[in-house]
Structure formats: C-alpha cells, structure tokens
C-alpha cells in the first residue's frame, strides 16, 4: 500500500493503518531497534511502541514519506530504552560499540537539550554529510542512524569490512573536527 494511503487511514482513525505500517515497515523498525538494543523481545516491544507513537502523532502530522518517519520514531524509542537501561546491560546491542566509538565527541558545555543549539548542531551535521561523497555518507548513516554493524554494512554496500571501518573512522574524525570548528 502506498504511504499516502496509509497516512490517510491514520487521519481517518482507521486501525488497519497500523497493520499496514507493521507489514510494510515492521521489519525495518525491528532491525533498527535490534541493532540498538540487541535482543528480539525489546525490538518487538519497540515496534509496538512505535505503532502507538505513530497513532498519537498522525494526525496532526502528515508525513509525505513514512519510512524515514517511522524509522526515526523507532530509533528514538530504542535509544530511550537504551538510556533507561543500566550501562552494564548495554552489552548485547550494536549500540555499546557505537557509544564506545563516540567517546571522542566534543564534551563542551553546550547542552543539546536546548532546542536552538540542537538545531544549529543538526545543521552542522547535515552540512558535513552533504559535503562528503554518497558512498561515505551512506556508510556513516547506516552506522549512526540505522546502527548497523560493520559486517552488515559491508554486506549491504558491497565493500570489505576493513574498508567500512576505515571510512567510519576517518569520516567520524572529520565530523568531530567539523563540529569543534563550529564551537561544539
């Protein structure tokens, strides 16, 4: 079913919209959640929470494309669940490795909870991502947006794991420099 028709059903408060989303993007959401949380049950719960959140969000929102919209909700729910866990229990998911990788992030006094600053920083991240080649951009997004493992990225984009690791390492370093230059 087309995204626009699914969104229309949400607006009509037709509950079949939920099954349509689950059928079309359920696997996509659970993969992201599983990548972050590392266990099937949590990923499944995350999908249910995502559907609930969608029901609450549409309306008033009317996304033109559902996949990034749904994926973003699933991702945020999974990251919130991760936050709620004890640090020692993080081990199962790809997120533990991701968080280790990000230990060299700028630790300035800026509080990302502040909306204005978040927007500025987001603009900086977007401008960086648009400035690099599509290949590198996709590798970074699969790593930090979809939280895929190095091995999975290697399979998806058809390049070696060593190559994927090198791209991530180099581009992350560049991104951090890019953010530091802008005072973050």
């Amino acid at each position, binding site marked *: 079913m087309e995204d626009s028709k699914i969104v229309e059903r949400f607006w009509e408060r037709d509950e079949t919209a939920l099954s349509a989303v689950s059928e079309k993007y359920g696997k*996509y959401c659970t993969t992201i959640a599983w990548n972050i949380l590392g266990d099937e049950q949590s990923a499944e719960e995350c999908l249910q929470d995502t559907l609930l959140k969608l029901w609450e969000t549409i309306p008033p929102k009317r996304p033109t*494309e559902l*996949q*990034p919209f749904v*994926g*973003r909700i699933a*991702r*945020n729910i999974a*990251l919130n669940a*991760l*936050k709620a866990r004890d640090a020692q229990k993080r081990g199962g998911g790809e*997120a533990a490795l*991701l*968080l280790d990788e*990000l*230990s060299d*992030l*700028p*630790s*300035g006094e*800026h509080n*990302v*909870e502040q909306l204005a600053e*978040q927007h500025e*920083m*987001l603009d900086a*991240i*977007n401008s960086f*991502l*648009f400035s690099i*080649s*599509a*290949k590198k*951009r*996709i590798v970074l*997004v*699969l790593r*930090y*947006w*979809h*939280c895929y493992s190095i091995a999975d990225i290697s*399979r*998806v*984009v*058809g*390049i070696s794991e060593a190559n994927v690791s090198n791209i991530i390492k180099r581009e992350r370093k560049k991104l951090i420099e890019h953010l530091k230059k802008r005072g*973050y």
Partner: protein
Amino acid sequence: MDKINFLQLFGEIDDKIVRQANSVLNLYQESQEGVSFRADYSRRSLWKTVIASVAFTAAAMFGVFVLLLNVGKIRLGGGTEQSGHGGSPVSSDIGSASSETVDRSESSDSREPVMVSIHLMMYWNDRDSFNKLTDQGMALKDEKIYSYFADCPILENCTVKVKGKNNFPDKQLEFSSTGRIDFKATTNETLIGFEAEMTVIDPEKPARAIVNIYSYPEDQSGSSA
C-alpha cells in the same frame, strides 16, 4: 556531550540523507529475496537431475535385467535352435545396449546444473566499481567446453560486464539491457567463477543488476568436449 543524545540528534538529520541510505537497504533486501528464489530454483533443478538419474538408472537396470532374461531365453532357445539361425545378431544387440547405457550415464553426470548468481548494486556519486566472485559450482574433472547462458533479468541505470574468473568464455558478455547471452566456456577447475563489473550511468540514481549464469540442464551437446 551525552553520546546517546548525540545519536538521537543524529537521528534528526535531513530526510534526503536517510532516504538515500534507505534506498540502498531496500535494494539489498530485494536482492536477498531474489537470492532465495534462485536458490530454490537451483535446488529444483538439482532434484530434477537427481530424480532423472535415479529413474534412468532404474530403467537401465530393468533393461539389463530384461536383456539378461532374453539372453537366457535366447541361449536356451539358441541351444534348441543352434543348428537353425545362430546367436550372433542377438549378441551384437546386447553389446550396443550395454555401451549405450554407459554413454547416457556419463552424459547424465556432466549435465548437473551449474548456477551462479551475481548481484550488484551501487549508489555512488564517485563512479566506483567492484567485483563479486561466485563461490558456487560443480566439480569438473577434465578440461572441457561447457555450454551456459547468462541471464540478466534486472538492469537499472548501469551496464554490466561479466568475465570468466577461472574459465574462458568464448565471447564478451556485456549487458546494456536486460536479456540473455548464450556462451561456451572452457575450464578444468573444480569451482567455476565469474567476475562482474558494473558501470553506473547516472551516479545520483540507484543502480542495480542481477546476472544469473546457468548451464543447459537439458543440453546434450553442450557437455561434450
């Protein structure tokens, strides 16, 4: 900065960027579904061959059994008719039937299906190319010429060139549109490999190609040297 907050912030990046990565993921998933379909096809072909071989062997054994019975009868009969027609025509029949059985059996072995699938997809703006080697194939003992066909059911925004990795196709295999190319290849390797190279036409659009290489499962002459 809190790392999880950073990941959450990263989740808010421009939709265009996420869409691009999603399209690569979607292509990958579609191609994986294609693989399982083709794997099923391969198994079916293999089972067909196995069933055909078993049926043929059973038929051959039955034939030999009937012939042996006939020989017995003829010998018995010949014993009774020794002074009459003689046994030589019957003996030559037995000989030809036996050699035909051996020939067919060899032919059946060499007609085991070979199937390799090469899946390529790209979405780069820096015009990259890569190779994927197959790791499937049948055990080939002697250098022979085998008949194949390369089938390209999906070709979007690219051209694909296929080369033999450890075999020698008799012609260039280049696809600029979907279709099929028949070719013969010489090899004596136990595993047969092909190498495919994709050239993207428009680097801003996703490109993908699937190339399947099949042997002729029903080909009688293709397996001959």
